[in-house]
């Protein structure tokens, strides 16, 4: 289940991790979705609507990494520092009712800032807002 809200920090970024680290977000990951709709309003309560552009779905994702071991938290922070302005892949679940198997989708996101809290000597918490982008992998 945990891999359904996760991203991978590859060792190739030279952030200090020797293996690719899969980071799962806390429970409570929220996706704020809004659609770009072209809308022409007419008279008595009706309107004509069409989607605007190829990618009309906008998403803002609130991800939390609370009470992590400070080494993991620092790695997440380092990764977000490394990716600032660049996109990365986030895996989220998209299994539907009565589906034969668990499935996930990979959405591409950017992080424009995060909040890092040093809870105590060995624990840190991070809250980050991710925005979905539709573009090639950076």
């Amino acid at each position, binding site marked *: 289940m945990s891999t359904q809200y996760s991203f991978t920090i590859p060792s190739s970024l030279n952030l200090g991790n020797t293996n690719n680290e899969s980071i799962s977000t806390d429970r409570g990951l929220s996706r704020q979705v809004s659609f770009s709709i072209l809308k022409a309003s007419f008279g008595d309560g009706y309107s004509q609507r069409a*989607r605007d552009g190829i990618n009309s779905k906008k998403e803002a994702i609130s991800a939390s990494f609370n009470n992590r071991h400070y080494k993991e938290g620092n790695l997440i922070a380092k990764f977000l520092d490394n990716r600032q302005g660049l996109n990365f892949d986030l895996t989220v679940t998209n299994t539907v009712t009565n589906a034969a198997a668990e499935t996930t989708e990979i959405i591409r996101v950017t992080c424009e800032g995060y909040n890092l809290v040093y809870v105590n000597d060995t624990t840190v918490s991070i809250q980050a807002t991710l925005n979905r982008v*539709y573009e090639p992998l950076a």
Partner: protein
Amino acid sequence: MTDLIDTVQELEIDDAYLELFDINLRWVNSDGDLVSDIIHLVDGLDNDNLNLWMPYDNSGSLEWAEYIACPIAIEGVALTSTGAPARPTLSIANVVSLARTISSSDGVSYGDGDSDETNFSTGGSYNADAKTVLAELNISKNEDILGSIVNHRKTLRKNTYVKISGSYYTYSDRSTTITGVPAPKEFPSGRFVLDRVSAENNLVVQYELASPFDVQGLKIPNRYVIGKYCPWDYRGAAGTTDSIKSGCTWNGGGYTIDNDSVSANSAGDVCAKTVQACKVRFHGAEDADSDIPLPFGGFPGSRKFK
């Protein structure tokens, strides 16, 4: 087109409205020649990181065009029946990306449908920096592409195509291969001329667009109405098609200014620029009666009658 009309009659159009841009880029190359090339841009990338494809009319023949995803937007398109025509604004984030699609130094496999043409960066398969691409085309500033013609196309997403592994599919159905080049289904397109740079900053350049009929100083049909004399270059169309300078098609023997005697060589070959001089050449005599149309550049009918 019928399909489009059927769709837009509905209140709930279960489709996306897309704007595509064909820009006939015109610039002066390093040899001093005015050259042009058509580039195709769209303001978004397909969810699978595939570029959109759409047929377009290239001088009478339908051809596939790959629409490169590019930060581009048009604003202020309007039709008015009175007053001056609207002058929309075309905003482009990265003029360099226009040039790279037609430059040979970009090192990208152009036309494969993948999205790698949309990024402009060094490393990977992109081995040319912006300066190199622009220098090759001799485009050094935003004003260098003024006069280019923008074809603003509008359609619905279901009428666009994607190219996967060399085969074309419609946007929505990616299991049935398209054979041949289908006729494009689109709304009536608008043509504009890049008239001037209205704003530029470190993020975008904005071009003010003009209707082709609204370009300052341009005369339609680009000729002065002169009654008595022909303004065309003598023998201007007598050579190869590459060197046509005017509509004068005379390629026979030379005449002197007196119009009545053919000189043995064309040393004294001069045209008097009058209708009479034209008739002597094409009809054989100044007062000859002939049905052969004269390639006369003036407008004899515009002269005053006394």
